[in-house]
């Protein structure tokens, strides 16, 4: 088959060639470097900086033998990435800007030069010397703006950090204090320290929402207002922050400096705020100024001391410092501390991996030797080496601008603390002070919930909020409350008015604090039954719901030479292992006793030896490791994106191409990737067209291959209506197979030519059939085979289906399902006729193109001995019993796993689950993200019921029902859903003796179960009797399989709010905006009043329903029309009016939108408009022609139980 030859991009493979093609990545590095240098000069530590630099040089010199300056050249960017280069210049600027420090400037300048070469070298390292890899990668990953300050102070910071970052650790008291004052803070310090890294790590993430940025800026300016803090607590903010964090790396890539700047600032702030708060107690703003000198001081002494050990650390740490600095763009003390942590870790890695000499001979001599001549070549490179870190940083320049004031502040505390961790006490008070304000600001009830915080450590923002709410509503006393019997038929308002939160496992506070966030990892039963028999008795599904790669605000990134794992089951060390003594730990999954490696005995946080239980791996249940070459089968692949576009008549007519091109142009620079990134295009109708995009060509060459089947096509009609999707995909597979990557397929019709052609299988008359829904499964195994081939070559296929007629999504979806891709479906898409769809495509594309991405990933799920997994749900290929092969992983992918209990768990009281996701970041680093969840084991049925996580159970049931409807039939699946309710409630009924049999009793934890199941039965995927297009149904099923729990729940059971009377009561603050929190309404038309306006949040769609008698004030102030009659039938935007109610409404909607990756479309529905049927079909509690009302359903269930 001819397809492969025309493709120009592929000609250049391998790192060396990458230059040409992927200049952008290089460009990025340059930037960073440049910027960092600026920082250097700026940094207060100029004095110290020189020595440090030299050290750095030494340190780096070893690793970076390769550092030739080839790199510089690549900058000539033909490619999108080219813009990055533009940034290079700023660096000099920076230098100039730095006022006093001559030393710093000089050093920085030199750095710049060398730095340019560096990035390249780092790449080289990847391939050449695996050992180096870890080091370099870590550096690179951590590109944060603020580095410069750190650089100078790095030595200092080390000392400081321990105290600040881990207030709780050194002294027993702090912990308790922390608690009372603030839940989050205790945890936070740790996070903070890591956060910098995190940000660095999570490069690829997508869109930085502007509001968040503002928020951050605001914070910085205000000196970390408590109020501003409060915002983070909110979910939306969190997400925003995450995005930003993720986006940082991207930022580097970004052509527009301004964007990068803005981004960088926010990021830094994120990291900093906690630190600042903790370190500087009351004097937030003032402290900052002081800090710098202090740090300098500290740094100097350390340097002068020139102790062997310290030096070594420094060396290692230096780049850690850089990283840190970068991470915490603003050099607040805390951040610095965090940096130190990182540094230390890095150092470890660096020492071990990069230069054994340094580690071996801690003596000053080694330094000298290094510097002097041992590695002369390296020298230059080494100088540059620091730069790489910065390069990673999004925007040094912006950081500078913002950071200067804060930076100085940071050093001071550090200085104090630095000497030897004495600083702690001083820091502590600040911490407390800060903490209290935070809570208060965040929430009205801030103080009250501190006790209930579920997962304070890891995700302070979100946790804070959720925990607070949870604590208030449900969780203060989980056991009694969750078991309270509820008479379902008599409880009229079953739906709580506040969002339902995940139940907290019944563990002690300590363990709960350490436990994984429910956003990433949830189990349907938070109390695991002891035996399979008990589980069978409970009649509830046991399984896990995972969102492993979601955008995180706080993620400890660990660069360690040895990743500590159990020797027999390969479990990563986690917070739930037990240390038998100093030297041995017992695996919590297989109970094997393992040795603690020497390296692990040293705690980089406290710089103390012999405290393995205080290592970050053991303090955080969600961590990310930078993996060594042991974790690679081949050099990390570059980011390769191929777009396969349908250009048949149908597609051109629909007009998606313009939207796609526009989005691509806008986001090209934000595509996650490095200098090796490649992009390709391929179009097809009845023929396949390749494009030669080689540089040097004034315009792309188009190459047409009409030989799709080996049989030449002689006829080429001008208006080609055929679609040769199959051959196009095969060609795409051949193109991608040398590297792997992502293929994005845009298809607008049923493929009608060549292999993989499909016939229309839908009978429109059967759309509302009650009996049989056929053709839910694929018609051919062509797409499945193709997907498996792709998966084997680390290529994922993402499908965008924009069709107006039936296109057999059931068959087409296979190409994404088994290659770990994702599916987007836009029914009856037309760029002009359906503007809302067009807008949705545009927004989805923006997210899709810019979000984080992991390549050549595998995910392994381990669980405690006795438990086993038997079914997986999601898009992937199951390679072996517990190993999922994911060619790509994206932050919006969710997974579900069904578990069974193979051996009884009588000899254990806790079970643990661990997912380890090994992936290649878009920057070419191998990383492992590990989540660990710990749950108690119970032996009684009531305890099992007490711990039911009803939302997780419903999501798992939905996944199982999808499988059932495909493998068996839809009616089977529906029956199974109803039976799930009947069985579980009757099983519960049998455990309570004192209740009359006539009543339908459920434990409080399960009270929403029937409602949610009814919602599932009325969901597009499973409903019968209502006209549902086959593709819509199949798409709903695909979504059920791949959506993470939070989003899936909205799809199953939308949220309804009344919005015509929004008040500030109970409102939360996000980004300076007041976001009202109206209460949830049950999904019944009885709640709709003609005088009101309601918002329904269906996950991917928002409906605003306006009642006929709605107050004209509201219509005028919010919708911008004088009265009800004037509202147009199709309205998809709310005008930005300068009225209070408009502001409230919009801020509420924006807040809802910010919480999800794909922006929902808004429809304004008038009371009597035809569109209202769409709206009313979501009223789950109401009766429809074909389905029960909620009450009828309850009666039905009751009847079944009594039978």
């Amino acid at each position, binding site marked *: 088959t001819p397809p492969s030859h025309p493709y120009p991009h592929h000609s250049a493979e391998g790192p060396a060639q990458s230059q040409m093609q992927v200049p952008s990545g290089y460009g990025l590095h340059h930037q960073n470097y440049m910027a960092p240098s600026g920082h250097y000069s700026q940094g207060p530590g100029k004095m110290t900086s020189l020595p440090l630099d030299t050290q750095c040089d030494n340190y780096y010199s070893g690793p970076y033998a390769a550092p030739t300056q080839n790199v510089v050249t690549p900058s000539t960017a033909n490619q999108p990435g080219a813009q990055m280069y533009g940034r290079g210049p700023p660096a000099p600027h920076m230098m100039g800007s730095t006022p006093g420090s001559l030393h710093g400037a000089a050093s920085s300048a030199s750095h710049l030069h060398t730095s340019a070469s560096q990035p390249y070298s780092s790449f080289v390292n990847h391939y050449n010397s695996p050992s180096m890899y870890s080091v370099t990668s870590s550096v690179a990953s951590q590109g944060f703006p603020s580095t410069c300050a750190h650089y100078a102070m790095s030595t200092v910071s080390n000392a400081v950090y321990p105290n600040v970052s881990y207030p709780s650790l050194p002294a027993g008291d702090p912990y308790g204090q922390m608690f009372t004052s603030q839940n989050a803070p205790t945890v936070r310090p740790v996070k903070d320290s890591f956060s910098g890294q995190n940000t660095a790590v999570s490069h690829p993430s997508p869109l930085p929402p502007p509001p968040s940025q503002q928020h951050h800026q605001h914070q910085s300016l205000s000196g970390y207002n408590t109020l501003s803090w409060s915002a983070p607590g909110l979910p939306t903010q969190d997400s925003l922050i995450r995005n930003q964090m993720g986006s940082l790396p991207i930022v580097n890539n970004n052509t527009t400096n301004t964007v990068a700047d803005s981004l960088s600032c926010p990021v830094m702030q994120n990291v900093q705020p906690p630190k600042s708060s903790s370190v500087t107690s009351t004097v937030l703003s003032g402290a900052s100024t002081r800090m710098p000198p202090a740090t300098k001081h500290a740094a100097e002494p350390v340097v002068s001391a020139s102790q062997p050990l310290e030096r070594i650390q420094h060396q290692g740490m230096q780049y850690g410092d850089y990283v840190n600095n970068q991470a915490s763009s603003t050099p607040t003390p805390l951040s610095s501390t965090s940096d130190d942590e990182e540094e230390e870790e890095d150092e470890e890695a660096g020492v071990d991996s990069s230069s054994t000499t340094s580690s071996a001979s801690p003596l000053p001599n080694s330094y000298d030797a290094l510097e002097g001549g041992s590695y002369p070549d390296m020298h230059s490179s080494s100088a540059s080496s620091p730069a790489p870190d910065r390069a990673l940083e999004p925007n040094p320049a912006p950081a500078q601008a913002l950071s200067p004031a804060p930076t100085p502040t940071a050093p001071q505390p550090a200085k104090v603390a630095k000497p030897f961790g004495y600083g702690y006490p001083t820091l502590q008070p600040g911490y407390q002070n800060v903490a209290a304000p935070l809570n208060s600001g965040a929430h009205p009830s801030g103080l009250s919930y501190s006790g209930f915080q579920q997962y304070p450590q890891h995700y302070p923002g979100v946790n804070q909020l959720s925990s607070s709410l949870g604590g208030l509503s449900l969780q203060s006393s989980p056991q009694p409350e969750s078991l309270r019997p509820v008479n379902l038929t008599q409880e009229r308002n079953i739906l709580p008015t506040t969002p339902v939160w995940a139940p907290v496992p019944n563990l002690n506070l300590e363990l709960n604090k350490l436990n994984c966030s429910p956003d990433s990892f949830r189990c349907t039963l938070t109390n695991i039954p002891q035996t399979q028999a008990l589980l069978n008795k409970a009649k509830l599904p046991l399984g896990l719901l995972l969102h492993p790669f979601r955008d995180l605000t706080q993620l400890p990134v660990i660069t360690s030479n040895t990743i500590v794992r159990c020797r027999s089951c390969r479990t990563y060390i986690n917070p739930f292992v037990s240390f038998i003594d100093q030297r041995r730990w017992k695996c919590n999954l297989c109970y094997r006793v393992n040795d603690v490696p020497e390296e692990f005995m040293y705690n980089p946080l406290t710089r103390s030896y012999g405290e393995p239980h205080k290592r970050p791996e053991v303090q955080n249940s969600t961590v990310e490791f930078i993996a060594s070459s042991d974790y690679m089968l081949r050099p990390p692949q570059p980011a390769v994106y191929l777009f396969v576009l349908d250009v048949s008549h149908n597609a051109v007519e629909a007009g998606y191409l313009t939207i796609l091109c526009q989005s691509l142009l806008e986001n090209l620079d934000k595509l996650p990737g490095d200098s090796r990134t490649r992009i390709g295009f391929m179009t097809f109708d009845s023929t396949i067209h390749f494009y030669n995009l080689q540089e040097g060509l004034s315009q792309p060459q188009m190459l047409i291959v009409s030989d799709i089947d080996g049989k030449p096509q002689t006829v080429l009609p001008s208006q080609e209506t055929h679609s040769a999707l199959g051959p196009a995909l095969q060609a795409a597979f051949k193109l991608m197979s040398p590297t792997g990557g992502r293929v994005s397929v845009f298809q607008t019709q049923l493929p009608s030519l060549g292999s993989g052609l499909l016939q229309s299988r839908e009978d429109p008359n059967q759309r509302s059939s009650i009996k049989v829904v056929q053709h839910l*499964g*694929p*018609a*051919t*195994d062509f797409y*499945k*085979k193709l997907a*498996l081939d792709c998966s*084997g070559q680390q290529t994922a296929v993402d499908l965008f289906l924009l069709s107006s007629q039936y296109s057999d999504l*059931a*068959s087409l979806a*296979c190409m994404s*399902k*088994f290659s770990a891709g994702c599916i987007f479906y836009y029914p009856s898409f037309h760029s002009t006729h359906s503007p809302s769809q067009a807008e949705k495509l545009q927004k989805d594309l923006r997210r899709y193109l810019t979000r984080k991405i992991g390549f050549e990933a595998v995910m392994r799920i381990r669980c405690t001995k006795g438990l086993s997994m*038997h*079914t*997986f749900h999601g898009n992937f*290929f*199951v*390679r*072996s*019993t517990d*190993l999922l092969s994911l060619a790509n992983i994206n932050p919006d992918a969710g997974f579900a796993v069904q578990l069974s209990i193979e051996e009884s768990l009588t000899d254990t009281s806790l079970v643990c689950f661990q997912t380890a996701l090994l992936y290649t970041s878009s920057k070419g680093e191998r990383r492992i993200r590990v989540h660990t969840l710990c749950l108690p084991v119970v032996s009684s049925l009531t305890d099992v019921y007490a711990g039911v996580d009803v939302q997780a159970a419903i999501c798992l049931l939905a996944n199982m029902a999808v*499988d059932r409807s495909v*493998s068996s039939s839809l009616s089977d699946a529906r029956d199974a859903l109803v039976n799930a309710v009947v069985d579980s409630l009757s099983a519960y009924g049998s455990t309570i003796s004192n209740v009359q049999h006539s009543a339908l009793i459920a434990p409080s934890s399960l009270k929403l179960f029937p409602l949610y199941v009814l919602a599932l039965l009325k969901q597009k995927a499973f409903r019968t009797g209502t006209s549902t297009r086959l593709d819509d149904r199949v798409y709903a099923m695909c979504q059920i399989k791949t959506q993470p729990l939070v989003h899936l729940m909205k799809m199953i059971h939308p949220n309804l709010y009344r919005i015509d009377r929004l008040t500030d009561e109970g409102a939360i603050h996000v980004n300076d905006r007041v976001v009202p929190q109206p209460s949830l309404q049950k999904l019944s038309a009885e709640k709709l009043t003609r005088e009101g306006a309601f918002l329904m949040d269906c996950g991917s769609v928002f409906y605003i329903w306006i009642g006929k008698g709605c107050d004209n004030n509201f219509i005028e102030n919010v919708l911008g029309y004088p009265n009800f009659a004037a509202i147009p039938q199709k309205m998809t935007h709310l005008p930005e009016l300068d009225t209070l109610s408009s502001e409230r409404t919009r801020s509420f909607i924006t807040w809802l939108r910010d919480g999800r990756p794909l922006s929902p479309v808004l429809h304004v529905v008038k009371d009597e408009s035809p569109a209202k049927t769409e709206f009313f079909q979501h009223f789950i509690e109401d009766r429809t022609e074909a389905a029960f009302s909620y009450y009828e359903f309850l009666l039905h269930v009751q009847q079944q139980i009594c039978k």
Partner: protein
Amino acid sequence: MEAMVFLLSLIDCCALIFLSVYFIITLSDLECDYINARSCCSKLNKWVIPELVGHTIVTVLMLVSLHWFIFLLNLPVATWNIYRFIMVPSGNMGVFDPTEIHNRGQLKSHMKEAMIKLGFYLLCFFMYLYSILND
């Protein structure tokens, strides 16, 4: 004549026994993660039809030679083989589908099935052997 029939069945049965053993070995390889699901399934799917044909031949042979007892003994297994083959969904890559073999305990049930068949074929083998010797 009679002996010829049984000799043929015996040889056929030997082949089926080897096939079952091969199935079991391959499946247990998959269980132990020595091979991946894709190659395991493509290996096994290749032999599904030979097994089906081989067993159908024996069954038909017994019917033709009017050994009713042995025919009735073989009939359920032959029916199951054919049923299994026919009921493969159109989107699947064969009786053994790499994307599903790890789901819903399919691997275990395949293994169980292969074991049962092995036992059955062994039983048949000795039956044919006995029949030959009796002749």
